[in-house]
C-alpha cells in the first residue's frame, strides 16, 4: 500500500496538468473571492457601484468561509478533474496492464491512487487557505484594518471540511473514469453535472417542484454547500446555501465519498483490463 501510494504520488507530482488545475483553482478563488469584491469595495469608496459584500467579508477573520466557498461548485469541479486524470489517464495510455503485471492487486493500485488523490486534495485546499490568508492580510494592511485571524480550531475544522468535500468530488471523478474507461467523457459529464445540472436543480427546479427541493437535501452538491455555509462561506457564492444542518451535511458528504470509492472498487475489480 505504501509503495503504491508513493508511486501514485510521484506520478501526480510530476504531472503538469495537476499543477495547472491547482493554479486554475487558486486563480478562480483569488479573482472571485478577493480581487473582484475588493475592486467593488474600492469602486464604492470612489463613487462607483459598490459590492454588497463589503470590506468586512475580505478580512482575515473570514478566511475559513472564504477559503471553502468554492468547493461546492468551481473548486469542486477542479477536484473532480484531478480525480478523473489520476484514474482515467491509465486507460488512455494503456498503463493499467503495465501496472498490474508488476504484481499488485487492482485494489492495491486503486487504494494507492485514492491515497494520492487525498493528498492532492489536501494540498489544493491548504493552498486555498494559504493564498486566502495572504490576500486577506494584504487587504487588511492596505485598508488599515486589524489582523484578526480565525482560531486554530476553526482553521482545522475548515481545512478538514474543505478536504472532505474535495476528496468526495475527486472520488466521483475517479469513479466516472473507471466506469467510462477514459478521461474525455468522464470530464465532460462531470462538468455538466457540477456546473449545469446542479445549478438548474437549485435555481429552477427546486423552487417549482417540491420533491426536487426535498431531493436537494440528499444530493452531494447542496450538502457540500450547506457544510461550507455553516463555516461562514458567503451566501451569494454559487452552490452555497444552508439547506441542511452541518452535522447532516458532513454525514451525507462522507457517505457519498464512501459510496463513490466502493462502487469504483467494485467495477475496477470485476471488469477485464483490455
Amino acid at each position: 500500500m505504501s509503495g503504491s501510494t508513493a508511486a501514485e504520488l510521484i506520478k501526480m507530482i510530476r504531472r503538469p496538468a495537476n499543477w495547472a488545475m491547482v493554479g486554475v483553482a487558486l486563480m478562480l478563488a483569488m479573482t472571485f473571492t478577493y480581487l473582484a469584491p475588493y475592486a467593488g469595495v474600492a469602486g464604492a469608496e470612489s463613487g462607483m457601484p459598490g459590492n454588497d459584500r463589503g470590506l468586512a467579508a475580505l478580512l482575515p477573520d473570514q478566511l475559513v468561509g472564504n477559503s471553502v466557498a468554492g468547493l461546492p461548485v468551481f473548486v469542486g469541479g477542479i477536484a473532480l478533474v484531478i480525480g478523473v486524470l489520476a484514474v482515467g489517464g491509465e486507460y488512455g495510455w494503456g498503463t493499467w496492464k503495465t501496472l498490474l503485471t508488476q504484481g499488485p492487486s487492482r485494489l492495491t493500485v486503486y487504494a494507492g491512487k485514492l491515497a494520492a488523490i487525498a493528498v492532492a486534495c489536501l494540498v489544493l485546499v491548504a493552498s486555498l487557505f494559504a493564498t486566502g490568508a495572504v490576500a486577506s492580510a494584504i487587504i487588511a494592511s492596505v485598508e488599515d484594518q486589524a489582523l484578526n485571524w480565525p482560531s486554530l480550531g476553526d482553521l482545522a475544522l475548515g481545512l478538514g471540511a474543505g478536504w472532505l468535500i474535495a476528496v468526495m468530488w475527486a472520488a466521483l471523478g475517479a469513479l466516472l473514469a473507471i466506469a467510462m474507461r477514459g478521461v474525455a467523457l468522464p470530464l465532460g459529464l462531470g462538468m455538466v453535472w457540477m456546473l449545469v445540472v446542479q445549478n438548474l436543480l437549485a435555481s429552477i427546479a427546486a423552487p417549482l417542484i417540491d420533491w426536487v427541493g426535498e431531493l436537494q437535501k440528499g444530493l452531494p452538491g447542496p450538502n457540500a454547500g450547506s457544510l461550507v455555509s455553516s463555516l461562514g462561506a458567503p451566501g451569494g457564492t454559487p452552490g452555497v446555501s444552508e439547506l441542511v444542518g452541518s452535522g447532516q451535511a458532513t454525514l451525507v458528504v462522507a457517505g457519498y465519498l464512501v459510496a463513490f470509492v466502493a462502487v469504483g472498487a467494485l467495477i475496477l475489480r470485476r471488469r477485464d483490463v483490455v
Partner: protein
Amino acid sequence: MSLPVETDRLTKRYGELVAVDEVTLTVRPGEIYGFLGPNGAGKTTTLRMLLGLVRASSGSVRLLGSAPGSPGHLERVGALIEGPGFWPYLSGRDNLKVLARYAKVGASDVDRVLDLVDLTDRAGDRYRTYSLGMKQRLGVAAALLKDPRLLILDEPTNGLDPAGMADMRALIRKLGADGCTVLLSSHLLSEVQQICDRVAVIAKGRIVAESTVAELRGDVRVKVVADPLPLAAETARALLGADKVAVEDGALALDLEPAHAGRVNRELVTAGVNVTEIRPLERDLEQVFFELTGQGEGNVG
C-alpha cells in the same frame, strides 16, 4: 516443481462469441515457447488471462503454480502485453521507478534493466520523445524489473529495426540460457523458428498444433536436380521405392533423410545421370502455419 505455465481448457466468451476455446497449454521450465496465431485468433486474450487482466469464463490457469488473483501470482513473472504503455510526461527512468515501487524492487534494478535493453543513455528523456523501438525496449525493461523466472512477451520486436530485432533475439536467448522461461508471441514466424524450442499455433480460439519447431515442419525431403530426369526418377524409384519419389517443378523430390543423399547421388551417377544439385527441401514454419490455420499470407498476428 511448478510448471511455468499450465492452462486447462481455458475459455473466454464474450456473449455468443467464443474468443478462446478450451486452450490447454503447458510451458516447461527453461524453454522458449512460441505462440502463433492470426489476428483475432485469441492469442492476446489468452495471454491476458494468464496474467489475470482478463477473467476466464471457464478453465484454469496457473503461472509458476499460482492462480490469477492469488497472492504472489505475478511475483516472479514479467510481461509485455500488446505494446508498451507508459506515462508520457515521465522519463524512461522515472517510469521504471514508479513500476519498481509496485514491483517492490530497488533502484539498482532500474539501472540494471535499462542497461540490459541499452537505454541508459536516453533514460533521462521523457517517454513521449522516444521512438517506437525505444518504447518497445522500455517495455521489455519493465518486464525484466523483477528478475523474472517467467517472461511473457507479446510481439517484443515490434517497432525495432533489424539490429534491434537481432539484439532482442539475443537477449531472449540469453534469458533462456540463464534459466528464465519465455512465452513469446510473435507475428514473425522466422523469429519463432529461430529462437523457440516449442510452438503452439492458435486459430479461431483453438490450439491447432503444439510441438517442437522441427516436428511442426514435418519430414524433411531432398531435392535433386538431374538430367535426364526420367532416368533419374527410374533409378531413384528402384533404389527407394516408388512411393518415396516424386517429380516436382522439373526436379526429383525424395522422401529421404538428408544424411542419405550421398548414397542416392552415387547411384544416380553410376546410372549415367548428370546430377547438378542436391539439397534438403525443408518446409518452413510459415508454410506449416498457413496449412494449419487455413490463412492466406500476410495475416499472421
